[in-house]
Protein backbone atom coordinates (compact mmCIF):
# COMPACT_ATOMS: atom_id res chain seq x y z
CA UNK A 1 0.00 0.00 0.00
CA UNK A 2 1.22 3.46 -0.87
CA UNK A 3 1.88 5.44 2.29
CA UNK A 4 1.01 9.03 3.15
CA UNK A 5 4.13 11.16 3.00
CA UNK A 6 5.42 13.40 5.77
CA UNK A 7 7.71 15.95 4.20
CA UNK A 8 10.05 18.40 5.92
CA UNK A 9 10.58 21.69 4.14
CA UNK A 10 13.74 23.69 4.64
CA UNK A 11 13.27 27.33 3.76
CA UNK A 12 16.64 28.77 2.74
CA UNK A 13 17.64 32.42 2.79
CA UNK A 14 21.26 33.46 2.18
CA UNK A 15 22.41 29.86 2.46
CA UNK A 16 20.91 29.13 5.87
CA UNK A 17 17.68 27.52 7.01
CA UNK A 18 15.19 30.07 8.31
CA UNK A 19 11.85 30.01 10.06
CA UNK A 20 9.32 31.83 7.94
CA UNK A 21 6.31 33.62 9.41
CA UNK A 22 3.57 34.67 7.01
CA UNK A 23 6.12 35.01 4.18
CA UNK A 24 7.23 38.23 5.92
CA UNK A 25 9.45 37.59 8.89
CA UNK A 26 12.42 35.26 8.93
CA UNK A 27 14.38 33.87 11.85
CA UNK A 28 17.62 31.92 11.44
CA UNK A 29 17.54 28.19 12.26
CA UNK A 30 20.85 26.67 11.15
CA UNK A 31 22.92 24.97 8.49
CA UNK A 32 21.05 23.09 5.76
CA UNK A 33 23.40 20.09 5.65
CA UNK A 34 23.01 19.45 9.39
CA UNK A 35 19.21 19.75 9.15
CA UNK A 36 19.11 17.29 6.23
CA UNK A 37 21.34 14.77 7.98
CA UNK A 38 19.17 14.77 11.10
CA UNK A 39 15.84 14.66 9.25
CA UNK A 40 17.17 11.72 7.24
CA UNK A 41 18.22 9.86 10.41
CA UNK A 42 14.87 10.50 12.05
CA UNK A 43 13.07 8.77 9.21
CA UNK A 44 11.40 11.65 7.39
CA UNK A 45 9.75 10.52 4.12
CA UNK A 46 11.00 13.33 1.93
CA UNK A 47 12.83 16.65 2.15
CA UNK A 48 12.09 19.82 0.20
CA UNK A 49 14.63 22.64 0.05
CA UNK A 50 13.27 25.96 -1.09
CA UNK A 51 15.49 28.97 -1.63
CA UNK A 52 13.17 31.96 -1.26
CA UNK A 53 15.73 34.52 -2.45
CA UNK A 54 16.98 33.03 -5.70
CA UNK A 55 14.10 33.90 -8.04
CA UNK A 56 13.55 37.36 -6.52
CA UNK A 57 17.23 38.21 -6.91
CA UNK A 58 17.55 36.51 -10.29
CA UNK A 59 20.08 33.98 -8.95
CA UNK A 60 20.71 30.43 -10.16
CA UNK A 61 20.01 27.54 -7.79
CA UNK A 62 22.85 26.94 -5.33
CA UNK A 63 24.21 23.69 -6.81
CA UNK A 64 27.10 23.48 -4.34
CA UNK A 65 24.67 23.62 -1.43
CA UNK A 66 22.55 20.83 -2.95
CA UNK A 67 25.65 18.71 -3.53
CA UNK A 68 26.65 19.22 0.07
CA UNK A 69 23.27 18.37 1.62
CA UNK A 70 22.60 15.42 -0.67
CA UNK A 71 25.70 13.58 0.58
CA UNK A 72 23.81 12.66 3.73
CA UNK A 73 20.37 12.46 2.18
CA UNK A 74 19.05 8.98 1.46
CA UNK A 75 15.44 10.07 1.15
CA UNK A 76 13.98 11.93 -1.82
CA UNK A 77 15.09 15.51 -2.14
CA UNK A 78 13.07 18.17 -3.96
CA UNK A 79 14.67 21.50 -4.70
CA UNK A 80 13.11 24.84 -5.55
CA UNK A 81 14.20 28.42 -6.08
CA UNK A 82 15.85 30.07 -9.06
CA UNK A 83 14.99 27.40 -11.65
CA UNK A 84 14.53 28.95 -15.11
CA UNK A 85 15.92 26.61 -17.74
CA UNK A 86 16.25 22.95 -18.67
CA UNK A 87 19.96 23.19 -17.89
CA UNK A 88 19.11 24.31 -14.35
CA UNK A 89 16.98 21.18 -13.92
CA UNK A 90 19.73 18.99 -15.33
CA UNK A 91 22.37 20.56 -13.10
CA UNK A 92 20.14 20.09 -10.05
CA UNK A 93 19.46 16.41 -10.76
CA UNK A 94 23.19 15.94 -11.25
CA UNK A 95 23.82 17.66 -7.89
CA UNK A 96 21.57 15.29 -5.96
CA UNK A 97 18.03 16.61 -6.44
CA UNK A 98 15.37 14.05 -7.32
CA UNK A 99 12.61 16.49 -8.16
CA UNK A 100 12.43 20.18 -8.85
CA UNK A 101 9.91 22.66 -7.47
CA UNK A 102 8.85 25.58 -9.63
CA UNK A 103 6.50 28.33 -8.61
CA UNK A 104 6.86 31.71 -10.30
CA UNK A 105 7.93 30.14 -13.58
CA UNK A 106 4.55 28.36 -13.77
CA UNK A 107 2.65 31.58 -14.30
CA UNK A 108 5.31 33.33 -16.30
CA UNK A 109 6.05 30.53 -18.74
CA UNK A 110 3.97 27.39 -18.19
CA UNK A 111 5.51 25.92 -21.37
CA UNK A 112 8.61 25.33 -19.28
CA UNK A 113 6.72 22.71 -17.28
CA UNK A 114 6.14 20.80 -20.53
CA UNK A 115 9.73 21.27 -21.64
CA UNK A 116 11.12 19.97 -18.32
CA UNK A 117 8.64 17.08 -18.22
CA UNK A 118 9.51 15.91 -21.73
CA UNK A 119 13.13 15.50 -20.71
CA UNK A 120 12.87 14.47 -17.07
CA UNK A 121 9.37 12.98 -16.93
CA UNK A 122 6.27 14.43 -15.31
CA UNK A 123 7.20 12.77 -12.01
CA UNK A 124 10.23 15.07 -11.69
CA UNK A 125 8.26 18.32 -11.69
CA UNK A 126 6.47 19.74 -8.66
CA UNK A 127 4.44 22.88 -9.35
CA UNK A 128 4.21 24.99 -6.23
CA UNK A 129 1.27 27.33 -5.66
CA UNK A 130 0.98 29.91 -2.89
CA UNK A 131 -2.60 30.43 -1.74
CA UNK A 132 -3.92 33.28 0.32
CA UNK A 133 -7.37 34.16 1.65
CA UNK A 134 -8.65 37.56 0.63
CA UNK A 135 -12.12 38.62 1.74
CA UNK A 136 -12.73 34.98 2.53
CA UNK A 137 -11.95 33.97 -1.02
CA UNK A 138 -8.96 31.81 -1.75
CA UNK A 139 -6.54 33.39 -4.24
CA UNK A 140 -3.19 32.73 -5.81
CA UNK A 141 -0.42 34.77 -4.28
CA UNK A 142 2.65 35.98 -6.18
CA UNK A 143 5.41 36.13 -3.59
CA UNK A 144 7.76 38.04 -5.90
CA UNK A 145 5.23 40.89 -6.20
CA UNK A 146 3.79 40.33 -2.74
CA UNK A 147 0.18 40.43 -3.96
CA UNK A 148 -2.61 38.12 -5.05
CA UNK A 149 -3.34 37.60 -8.73
CA UNK A 150 -6.69 37.17 -10.40
CA UNK A 151 -6.57 33.61 -11.69
CA UNK A 152 -9.28 31.11 -10.96
CA UNK A 153 -7.57 28.72 -8.55
CA UNK A 154 -9.17 25.52 -9.86
CA UNK A 155 -8.49 26.40 -13.50
CA UNK A 156 -4.94 27.24 -12.59
CA UNK A 157 -4.35 23.88 -10.87
CA UNK A 158 -5.91 22.01 -13.81
CA UNK A 159 -3.63 23.91 -16.14
CA UNK A 160 -0.56 22.88 -14.15
CA UNK A 161 -1.57 19.25 -14.60
CA UNK A 162 -2.30 19.85 -18.28
CA UNK A 163 1.14 21.35 -18.87
CA UNK A 164 2.73 18.28 -17.31
CA UNK A 165 3.36 18.82 -13.60
CA UNK A 166 3.68 15.53 -11.70
CA UNK A 167 2.69 16.91 -8.30
CA UNK A 168 1.27 20.12 -6.91
CA UNK A 169 2.52 21.71 -3.69
CA UNK A 170 -0.06 24.01 -2.09
CA UNK A 171 1.32 26.53 0.39
CA UNK A 172 -1.19 28.22 2.64
CA UNK A 173 0.39 31.63 3.11
CA UNK A 174 -2.02 32.79 5.86
CA UNK A 175 -1.14 29.80 7.95
CA UNK A 176 2.62 29.93 7.36
CA UNK A 177 4.37 29.83 10.72
CA UNK A 178 1.19 30.38 12.71
CA UNK A 179 0.51 26.82 13.93
CA UNK A 180 -3.23 26.98 13.15
CA UNK A 181 -3.54 23.51 11.64
CA UNK A 182 -4.09 22.71 7.96
CA UNK A 183 -6.87 24.47 6.04
CA UNK A 184 -9.09 21.37 5.75
CA UNK A 185 -12.03 23.09 3.99
CA UNK A 186 -9.98 24.53 1.17
CA UNK A 187 -7.95 21.34 0.82
CA UNK A 188 -11.16 19.34 0.38
CA UNK A 189 -12.40 21.76 -2.25
CA UNK A 190 -9.21 21.39 -4.27
CA UNK A 191 -7.98 17.79 -3.85
CA UNK A 192 -10.14 16.10 -6.43
CA UNK A 193 -9.92 18.83 -9.03
CA UNK A 194 -6.74 17.28 -10.40
CA UNK A 195 -5.65 13.70 -10.90
CA UNK A 196 -2.03 14.21 -9.80
CA UNK A 197 -0.91 14.00 -6.15
CA UNK A 198 -1.10 17.14 -4.00
CA UNK A 199 1.17 18.08 -1.12
CA UNK A 200 -0.12 20.64 1.36
CA UNK A 201 1.93 22.90 3.55
CA UNK A 202 1.24 25.63 6.07
CA UNK A 203 -0.17 25.45 9.56
CA UNK A 204 1.10 22.18 11.07
CA UNK A 205 0.98 22.62 14.84
CA UNK A 206 1.38 19.15 16.27
CA UNK A 207 0.66 15.52 15.45
CA UNK A 208 -3.09 16.21 15.64
CA UNK A 209 -2.81 18.54 12.64
CA UNK A 210 -1.58 15.59 10.59
CA UNK A 211 -4.18 13.18 11.99
CA UNK A 212 -6.89 15.71 11.17
CA UNK A 213 -5.58 16.20 7.66
CA UNK A 214 -5.30 12.52 6.78
CA UNK A 215 -8.61 11.59 8.40
CA UNK A 216 -10.65 14.41 6.88
CA UNK A 217 -9.11 14.67 3.43
CA UNK A 218 -7.72 12.26 0.86
CA UNK A 219 -4.52 14.26 0.46
CA UNK A 220 -1.38 12.22 -0.32
CA UNK A 221 1.28 14.21 1.48
CA UNK A 222 1.78 16.87 4.13
CA UNK A 223 4.75 19.15 4.49
CA UNK A 224 5.86 21.28 7.41
CA UNK A 225 8.85 23.42 8.16
CA UNK A 226 8.84 25.20 11.49
CA UNK A 227 7.08 22.36 13.29
CA UNK A 228 9.94 19.99 12.53
CA UNK A 229 12.59 22.48 13.66
CA UNK A 230 11.07 23.56 16.92
CA UNK A 231 9.39 20.54 18.51
CA UNK A 232 11.28 17.82 20.38
CA UNK A 233 11.31 14.43 18.61
CA UNK A 234 8.94 15.97 16.04
CA UNK A 235 9.55 13.53 13.19
CA UNK A 236 9.72 10.28 15.12
CA UNK A 237 6.96 11.26 17.55
CA UNK A 238 4.60 12.39 14.78
CA UNK A 239 5.14 9.29 12.69
CA UNK A 240 4.90 6.96 15.67
CA UNK A 241 1.59 8.46 16.89
CA UNK A 242 0.24 8.69 13.34
CA UNK A 243 1.03 5.07 12.62
CA UNK A 244 -1.01 4.01 15.67
CA UNK A 245 -4.01 5.77 14.11
CA UNK A 246 -3.49 5.09 10.43
CA UNK A 247 -2.13 2.06 8.61
CA UNK A 248 -0.79 4.22 5.81
CA UNK A 249 2.29 5.61 7.56
CA UNK A 250 5.83 4.38 7.05
CA UNK A 251 7.83 3.93 10.24
CA UNK A 252 11.37 2.71 10.04
CA UNK A 253 12.75 3.59 13.42
CA UNK A 254 12.31 1.67 16.66
CA UNK A 255 11.04 4.63 18.65
CA UNK A 256 7.86 4.07 20.64
CA UNK A 257 6.17 6.74 22.70
CA UNK A 258 3.53 4.77 24.59
CA UNK A 259 5.05 5.65 27.99
CA UNK A 260 5.69 9.32 27.23
CA UNK A 261 3.62 12.14 28.67
CA UNK A 262 2.73 15.21 26.66
CA UNK A 263 1.47 18.68 27.50
CA UNK A 264 -1.75 20.22 26.16
CA UNK A 265 0.04 21.13 22.92
CA UNK A 266 1.19 17.53 22.49
CA UNK A 267 4.80 18.36 23.17
CA UNK A 268 6.72 15.65 24.96
CA UNK A 269 7.33 16.25 28.66
CA UNK A 270 10.32 15.17 30.65
CA UNK A 271 9.74 11.91 32.50
CA UNK A 272 9.21 12.08 36.25
CA UNK A 273 12.38 12.02 38.35
CA UNK A 274 11.62 8.69 39.99
CA UNK A 275 11.04 7.11 36.58
CA UNK A 276 14.33 8.49 35.33
CA UNK A 277 16.12 7.26 38.43
CA UNK A 278 14.91 3.70 37.95
CA UNK A 279 15.62 3.68 34.25
CA UNK A 280 18.00 1.07 32.95
CA UNK A 281 20.06 1.94 29.95
CA UNK A 282 20.70 -0.83 27.50
CA UNK A 283 23.35 -0.38 24.90
CA UNK A 284 22.01 -1.19 21.46
CA UNK A 285 24.65 -1.67 18.83
CA UNK A 286 23.81 0.24 15.67
CA UNK A 287 22.88 -2.04 12.81
CA UNK A 288 25.66 -2.17 10.28
CA UNK A 289 24.44 -2.24 6.72
Amino acid at each position, binding site marked *: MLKKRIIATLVIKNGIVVQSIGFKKYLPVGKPDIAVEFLNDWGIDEIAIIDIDATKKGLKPDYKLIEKVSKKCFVP*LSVGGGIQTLDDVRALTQSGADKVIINNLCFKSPDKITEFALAFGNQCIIASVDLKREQNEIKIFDYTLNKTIDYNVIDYLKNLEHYGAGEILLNFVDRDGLYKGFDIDVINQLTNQVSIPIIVQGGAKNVNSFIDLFEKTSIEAAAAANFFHFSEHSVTFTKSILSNKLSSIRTETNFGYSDFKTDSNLRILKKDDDVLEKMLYVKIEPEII
Partner: protein
Amino acid sequence: MNRKLNIVIADYNLGNTYSVSNAIKHLGYNVRISLEESNLKNADVIILPGVGAFEEAIKNIKSRNLDKILGELVLVKSKPILGICVGMQLLANSSEENGLHEGLGWIEGHVKQIIPLNNDKVPHVGWNNIKITKESKLYTNLGQDNHFYFDHKYHFVTEEKFISAQCEFGNQLITSSVQYRNIFGVQFHPEKSQRAGLKLFRGFLENVELI
Protein backbone atom coordinates in the same frame (compact mmCIF):
# COMPACT_ATOMS: atom_id res chain seq x y z
CA MET B 1 33.16 -7.36 1.76
CA ASN B 2 34.93 -6.75 -1.49
CA ARG B 3 35.73 -3.04 -1.50
CA LYS B 4 37.80 -3.48 -4.64
CA LEU B 5 34.68 -4.13 -6.66
CA ASN B 6 34.78 -1.90 -9.71
CA ILE B 7 31.38 -0.24 -9.94
CA VAL B 8 30.54 2.06 -12.83
CA ILE B 9 27.46 4.22 -13.10
CA ALA B 10 26.67 4.68 -16.78
CA ASP B 11 26.32 8.39 -17.40
CA TYR B 12 23.92 9.30 -20.19
CA ASN B 13 23.30 12.86 -19.05
CA LEU B 14 19.88 12.18 -17.59
CA GLY B 15 20.26 10.22 -14.40
CA ASN B 16 20.55 11.25 -10.79
CA THR B 17 24.07 9.88 -10.99
CA TYR B 18 25.26 11.86 -7.99
CA SER B 19 22.61 10.42 -5.62
CA VAL B 20 23.34 6.85 -6.72
CA SER B 21 27.07 7.37 -6.35
CA ASN B 22 26.57 8.92 -2.87
CA ALA B 23 24.62 5.92 -1.63
CA ILE B 24 27.16 3.41 -2.93
CA LYS B 25 30.12 5.42 -1.64
CA HIS B 26 28.41 5.61 1.74
CA LEU B 27 28.75 1.81 1.90
CA GLY B 28 32.51 2.11 1.36
CA TYR B 29 32.79 1.09 -2.28
CA ASN B 30 34.64 2.85 -5.04
CA VAL B 31 32.37 3.99 -7.76
CA ARG B 32 32.92 5.86 -10.99
CA ILE B 33 30.45 7.86 -13.06
CA SER B 34 31.41 7.43 -16.69
CA LEU B 35 30.41 6.72 -20.24
CA GLU B 36 33.88 5.77 -21.47
CA GLU B 37 33.87 2.38 -23.12
CA SER B 38 37.13 1.42 -21.39
CA ASN B 39 35.68 2.12 -17.94
CA LEU B 40 32.53 0.19 -18.69
CA LYS B 41 34.60 -2.74 -20.00
CA ASN B 42 36.58 -2.87 -16.76
CA ALA B 43 33.51 -2.68 -14.55
CA ASP B 44 32.47 -5.61 -12.37
CA VAL B 45 29.00 -4.13 -12.07
CA ILE B 46 27.24 -1.51 -14.16
CA ILE B 47 24.46 0.67 -12.83
CA LEU B 48 22.03 2.40 -15.16
CA PRO B 49 20.38 5.11 -13.11
CA GLY B 50 17.45 7.21 -14.16
CA VAL B 51 15.39 10.23 -13.48
CA GLY B 52 13.96 11.07 -16.84
CA ALA B 53 11.50 10.48 -19.61
CA PHE B 54 11.94 7.32 -21.68
CA GLU B 55 12.30 9.00 -25.07
CA GLU B 56 15.04 11.35 -23.91
CA ALA B 57 16.76 8.49 -22.08
CA ILE B 58 16.90 6.08 -25.03
CA LYS B 59 17.91 8.92 -27.36
CA ASN B 60 20.82 9.81 -25.07
CA ILE B 61 21.81 6.14 -24.75
CA LYS B 62 21.82 5.62 -28.51
CA SER B 63 23.56 8.87 -29.37
CA ARG B 64 26.40 7.84 -27.06
CA ASN B 65 26.47 4.37 -28.63
CA LEU B 66 25.81 2.97 -25.16
CA ASP B 67 23.21 0.52 -26.51
CA LYS B 68 25.91 -1.26 -28.54
CA ILE B 69 28.65 -1.00 -25.89
CA LEU B 70 26.45 -2.12 -23.01
CA GLY B 71 24.72 -4.73 -25.18
CA GLU B 72 28.05 -6.45 -25.85
CA LEU B 73 29.07 -6.33 -22.17
CA VAL B 74 25.73 -7.41 -20.74
CA LEU B 75 24.43 -9.89 -23.32
CA VAL B 76 27.70 -11.44 -24.55
CA LYS B 77 30.06 -11.01 -21.59
CA SER B 78 27.27 -11.43 -18.98
CA LYS B 79 28.33 -8.45 -16.90
CA PRO B 80 25.79 -7.76 -14.14
CA ILE B 81 23.75 -4.60 -14.65
CA LEU B 82 21.19 -2.89 -12.43
CA GLY B 83 18.72 -0.47 -14.00
CA ILE B 84 16.99 1.99 -11.69
CA CYS B 85 13.59 3.57 -12.45
CA VAL B 86 13.72 4.68 -16.10
CA GLY B 87 17.00 2.73 -16.20
CA MET B 88 14.94 -0.41 -15.57
CA GLN B 89 12.29 0.62 -18.07
CA LEU B 90 14.99 0.97 -20.76
CA LEU B 91 15.53 -2.79 -20.47
CA ALA B 92 12.07 -3.43 -21.97
CA ASN B 93 11.18 -3.83 -25.65
CA SER B 94 9.22 -0.60 -25.80
CA SER B 95 7.66 2.27 -23.90
CA GLU B 96 4.56 4.30 -24.64
CA GLU B 97 5.76 7.39 -22.75
CA ASN B 98 5.18 10.40 -25.07
CA GLY B 99 4.70 8.19 -28.16
CA LEU B 100 5.90 4.66 -28.82
CA HIS B 101 9.66 4.17 -28.42
CA GLU B 102 11.91 1.17 -28.79
CA GLY B 103 13.84 0.10 -25.71
CA LEU B 104 16.96 -2.04 -25.33
CA GLY B 105 14.82 -5.20 -25.39
CA TRP B 106 16.96 -7.15 -22.92
CA ILE B 107 13.97 -8.23 -20.83
CA GLU B 108 10.73 -9.07 -22.66
CA GLY B 109 8.16 -6.49 -21.70
CA HIS B 110 6.48 -3.22 -22.46
CA VAL B 111 6.36 0.00 -20.47
CA LYS B 112 2.81 1.28 -20.23
CA GLN B 113 1.11 4.18 -18.53
CA ILE B 114 -0.37 3.40 -15.12
CA ILE B 115 -4.13 3.67 -15.49
CA PRO B 116 -5.45 4.67 -12.07
CA LEU B 117 -8.32 2.69 -10.63
CA ASN B 118 -10.66 4.37 -8.15
CA ASN B 119 -9.32 7.75 -7.14
CA ASP B 120 -5.66 6.89 -7.13
CA LYS B 121 -3.45 9.75 -8.17
CA VAL B 122 -0.79 9.17 -10.80
CA PRO B 123 2.27 9.43 -10.78
CA HIS B 124 2.66 6.62 -8.25
CA VAL B 125 4.82 8.64 -5.90
CA GLY B 126 5.89 7.86 -2.37
CA TRP B 127 6.86 4.96 -0.16
CA ASN B 128 5.34 1.59 -0.89
CA ASN B 129 6.02 -1.83 0.61
CA ILE B 130 7.02 -4.49 -1.86
CA LYS B 131 6.22 -8.17 -1.94
CA ILE B 132 9.19 -10.23 -2.99
CA THR B 133 7.86 -12.88 -5.37
CA LYS B 134 11.12 -14.52 -6.33
CA GLU B 135 14.46 -15.03 -4.68
CA SER B 136 16.89 -12.46 -6.03
CA LYS B 137 20.39 -11.22 -5.34
CA LEU B 138 18.75 -7.84 -4.75
CA TYR B 139 16.99 -8.97 -1.61
CA THR B 140 19.62 -11.11 0.11
CA ASN B 141 20.03 -8.64 3.00
CA LEU B 142 16.36 -7.78 3.40
CA GLY B 143 13.40 -9.33 5.21
CA GLN B 144 9.90 -9.45 3.75
CA ASP B 145 8.36 -6.10 4.63
CA ASN B 146 10.36 -3.24 3.21
CA HIS B 147 9.39 0.19 2.04
CA PHE B 148 10.96 1.73 -1.03
CA TYR B 149 10.50 5.12 -2.64
CA PHE B 150 8.72 5.08 -5.99
CA ASP B 151 8.13 7.95 -8.40
CA HIS B 152 6.80 6.99 -11.82
CA LYS B 153 3.88 7.38 -14.18
CA TYR B 154 4.67 4.39 -16.42
CA HIS B 155 5.24 0.80 -15.38
CA PHE B 156 6.94 -2.34 -16.67
CA VAL B 157 4.39 -4.87 -17.90
CA THR B 158 5.99 -8.27 -18.32
CA GLU B 159 5.62 -12.01 -17.73
CA GLU B 160 5.60 -13.31 -14.19
CA LYS B 161 8.86 -15.20 -14.71
CA PHE B 162 10.80 -11.94 -15.02
CA ILE B 163 9.24 -10.27 -11.97
CA SER B 164 11.03 -10.56 -8.63
CA ALA B 165 8.89 -8.13 -6.59
CA GLN B 166 5.59 -6.28 -6.86
CA CYS B 167 3.74 -3.63 -4.91
CA GLU B 168 0.09 -2.75 -4.53
CA PHE B 169 -1.09 0.56 -5.91
CA GLY B 170 -4.78 0.88 -5.24
CA ASN B 171 -6.21 -2.35 -6.62
CA GLN B 172 -3.44 -3.08 -9.05
CA LEU B 173 -0.05 -4.69 -8.87
CA ILE B 174 2.97 -2.76 -10.07
CA THR B 175 6.17 -4.49 -11.14
CA SER B 176 8.74 -3.36 -8.59
CA SER B 177 11.74 -5.32 -9.78
CA VAL B 178 12.68 -7.55 -12.69
CA GLN B 179 15.48 -9.97 -13.44
CA TYR B 180 16.66 -12.06 -16.33
CA ARG B 181 19.98 -13.79 -15.71
CA ASN B 182 22.60 -11.05 -15.07
CA ILE B 183 20.16 -8.23 -15.89
CA PHE B 184 18.42 -6.59 -12.93
CA GLY B 185 16.00 -3.71 -12.71
CA VAL B 186 14.21 -1.88 -9.90
CA GLN B 187 11.35 0.53 -10.47
CA PHE B 188 11.89 2.22 -7.11
CA HIS B 189 14.89 4.31 -6.08
CA PRO B 190 17.12 2.33 -3.68
CA GLU B 191 19.44 5.36 -3.44
CA LYS B 192 16.51 7.27 -1.93
CA SER B 193 14.99 4.51 0.19
CA GLN B 194 16.97 5.03 3.36
CA ARG B 195 18.20 1.91 5.16
CA ALA B 196 16.21 -0.51 3.02
CA GLY B 197 17.81 0.96 -0.08
CA LEU B 198 21.32 0.81 1.33
CA LYS B 199 20.74 -2.81 2.39
CA LEU B 200 19.60 -3.62 -1.13
CA PHE B 201 22.80 -2.17 -2.60
CA ARG B 202 24.91 -4.00 -0.02
CA GLY B 203 23.22 -7.35 -0.66
CA PHE B 204 23.38 -6.91 -4.40
CA LEU B 205 27.01 -5.79 -4.52
CA GLU B 206 28.16 -8.51 -2.13
CA ASN B 207 26.53 -11.25 -4.11
CA VAL B 208 26.82 -9.96 -7.58
CA GLU B 209 30.19 -11.57 -8.25
CA LEU B 210 28.66 -14.96 -7.67
CA ILE B 211 26.39 -14.54 -10.67
